[in-house]
């Protein structure tokens, strides 16, 4: 039993129920028990949400918690604290751990550790292939029973088309999507950034946008042929977005996600940093896979997110140790620590008039739940309905703050946004009826 909470006077935005109005939200025993105006709740803990947005907790379908095996980068405790600070109440843990999440034992380890240490809900994603080696299928039935909500070899693409076909066919028996990191490994061989004028300027090897598009097209063709569900991880190119749009129009079971950084940053950040400038930086914190792309690709990602071609925002939170970024660009690890900046960064689209706030919230709540069918495993997440889990976030869309990676809860300080001012902040996060994060400014 937890103390009842009443969240007073906020603008409640719950896109799943098309609800957008000023209301109180009552939380009892870890569940939402009322969303309406003027709730009487004597004795409940009062949270003053006037002038704030009250929304369902964000759902991230693409999080690298690094646990087990790579705890020096992140662990379930630190990763879920970072999630809470970012407004996320559910994270889907990618299986590129050591060992990979390719057996029930590893999945159960993660769930057991999450039960003990996690601040927010952790839903595991199983590997597509044993040891993520791209050759033999894992036991999808056993892993689905253990709690895996999808399968992915993320970090690596499923290069073998036959394996991808079998995975889509076999996983469909358990109504689980295959999440693919789409990148032709031959076309992208040795690449460390996007191929374009910036890679020419820096003398770095670039991956052409076509390396993504060719594999997105292949996966859609395979999903169409098998009836399986493919979810395209972190779409980053115009051609990739277009392929998904055409696939959806044909009725193929394809869904897609895009990261906050691919919606807002271009490959120029690798050269000149997120603040811009003239001096070459070789910014290793902007080295990420898929790479930051051209302005034209960023534009296509925004359009795709706005029109629903892309179902959801996913962080691809990829924390690394300092030393893995403090080195030559070619040798630096790929990835951005993204949970704690996701909302503020995406708010740029809202402030720039490219996306309305309700749509952004939809793409971070109901969108991911619908894309991966998460409500089968965790009913009621991504919305604020009576009886559903009390996963709630309090947002101040106007609040300006400066990113300080040293203050991250994540062990990964690897972000190109250090020192950058963002407009839009998470003020408090409630997960399962418990306040798991609150800024000092929050009237909690």
């Amino acid at each position, binding site marked *: 039993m937890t103390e009842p909470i009443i969240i007073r006077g906020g603008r409640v935005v719950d896109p799943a129920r098309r609800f957008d109005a000023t209301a109180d939200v009552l939380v009892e025993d870890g569940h939402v028990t009322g969303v309406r105006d003027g709730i009487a709740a004597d004795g409940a803990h009062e949270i003053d949400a006037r002038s704030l947005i009250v929304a369902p907790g964000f759902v991230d379908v693409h999080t690298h918690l690094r646990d087990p095996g790579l705890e020096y980068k992140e662990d379930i405790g630190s990763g879920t604290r970072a999630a809470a600070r970012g407004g996320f109440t559910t994270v889907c843990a990618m299986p590129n751990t050591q060992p990979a999440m390719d057996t029930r034992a590893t999945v159960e380890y993660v769930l057991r550790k999450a039960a003990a240490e996690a601040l927010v809900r952790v839903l595991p994603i199983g590997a597509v292939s044993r040891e993520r080696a791209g050759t033999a299928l894992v036991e999808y039935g056993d892993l689905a029973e253990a709690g895996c909500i999808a399968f992915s070899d993320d970090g690596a693409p499923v290069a073998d088309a036959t394996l991808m076909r079998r995975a889509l066919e076999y996983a469909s028996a358990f109504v689980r999507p295959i999440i693919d990191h789409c990148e032709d490994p031959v076309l992208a061989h040795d690449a460390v950034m996007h191929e374009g*004028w910036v890679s*020419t*300027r820096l003398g770095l090897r670039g991956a052409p946008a076509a390396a993504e598009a060719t594999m997105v097209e292949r996966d859609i063709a395979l999903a169409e042929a098998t009836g399986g569900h493919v979810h395209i991880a972190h779409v980053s190119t115009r051609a990739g977005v277009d392929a998904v749009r055409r696939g959806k129009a044909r009725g193929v079971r394809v869904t897609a996600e895009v990261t906050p950084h691919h919606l807002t940053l271009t490959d120029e950040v690798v050269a000149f940093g997120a603040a811009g400038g003239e001096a*070459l930086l070789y910014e290793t914190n902007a080295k990420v896979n898929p790479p930051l792309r051209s302005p034209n690709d960023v534009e296509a990602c925004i359009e795709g997110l706005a029109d629903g071609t892309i179902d959801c925002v996913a962080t691809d939170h990829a924390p690394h140790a300092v030393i893995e970024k403090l080195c030559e*660009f070619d040798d630096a690890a790929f990835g951005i620590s993204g949970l704690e900046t996701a909302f503020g960064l995406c708010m740029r689209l809202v402030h720039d008039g490219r996306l309305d706030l309700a749509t952004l919230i939809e793409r971070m709540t109901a969108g991911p739940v619908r894309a991966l069918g998460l409500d089968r495993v965790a009913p009621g997440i991504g919305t604020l309905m009576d009886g559903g889990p009390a996963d709630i976030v309090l947002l101040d869309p106007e609040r300006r703050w400066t990113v300080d990676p040293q203050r991250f809860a994540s062990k990964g300080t690897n972000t190109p946004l250090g020192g950058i001012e963002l407009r839009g902040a998470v003020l408090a996060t409630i997960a399962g009826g418990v306040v798991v994060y609150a800024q000092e400014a929050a009237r909690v």
Partner: protein
Amino acid sequence: MTTTRETAARPVDVPSIAAAPDETAWRRRHLLDLDDFTPEEVGLVLTTTAAMKEVLAREVPRVPALRGTTIVTLFYENSTRTRSSFELAGKVLGADVINVAASSSSVTKGESLIDTVRTLQAIGADVIVMRHSRSGAPYLAARHTTAAVVNAGDGLHAHPTQALLDLYTMRARLGDVRGRRIVIVGDVLHSRVARSNMWLLTALGAELVVCAPPTLLPRGLGDAPGDRLPPVRVETDLDVAIRDADVVMALRMQNERMQGGFVPGVREYSRRYQVNEERLARARPGAIVMHPGPMNEGVEISHEVAHGLRSQVEEQVANGVAVRMAVLWLTTRVAGGSAA
């Protein structure tokens, strides 16, 4: 020669560089790239180089200008000519020169570039001359040391002293490069020499033509926003590119590019892109031919052209020492080296 003897007869403790230019115009701590060089700075390097040429022409080509200065050449890639050129440049100026040969794999074996650079600084290095297979590595080094970092070639990115010596060599034969048509032909995609030359020569108003098979052309040349890449003309047919050229610079074609499938093979490449007498007939009458070396004679350049009257290859090597003397001299002014 009288002048030379008189200069050489000065007391050795006087840093005697004839017509020493006004080095206050030089504000760079490091020499990493030429992408932001002003024509004034280039002019300073050239006049300093001319002064250094004069030193090299003396009977005893030694001056104590950098006496007490420690220069470390830190080479993660083998390069006999560039390393010995810097080494000699430092020695002519009286500096102590230490050569460190580090292999790129030592990074993965343990010591990071940052640790290495800090170690060199701790033992007293004033200047670190660095060659590295990773683009941008000298930028990383420069952020972590108080020593001056001179880029002696980083990955596919830049090779500033090579471009400066190329420019010096061109000017010695042609005068001002403004309005001159300069063709760079070959593996531009993988060439740091081409990149640095593009920045330098276009900044001085040369008309630059870049020629390569489409597979060896870097992306974005000609369509980058603003001045984010140098303004060059791209041409895939050497017979067209070479027309009315004042300078033809051939780049080394490495065997691995053939094996990597960038071009079908040596036969087709040399037939279409070799700089030879027949093609040079289309260039301007006094056109010169350059090559950063080492040459693959019979591939990107014919034997006759490589050793013919137009060839500036040996001048390039000789001018390299003077240019590197100039660069070492100028960077130590700012880095606060212990030189007089």
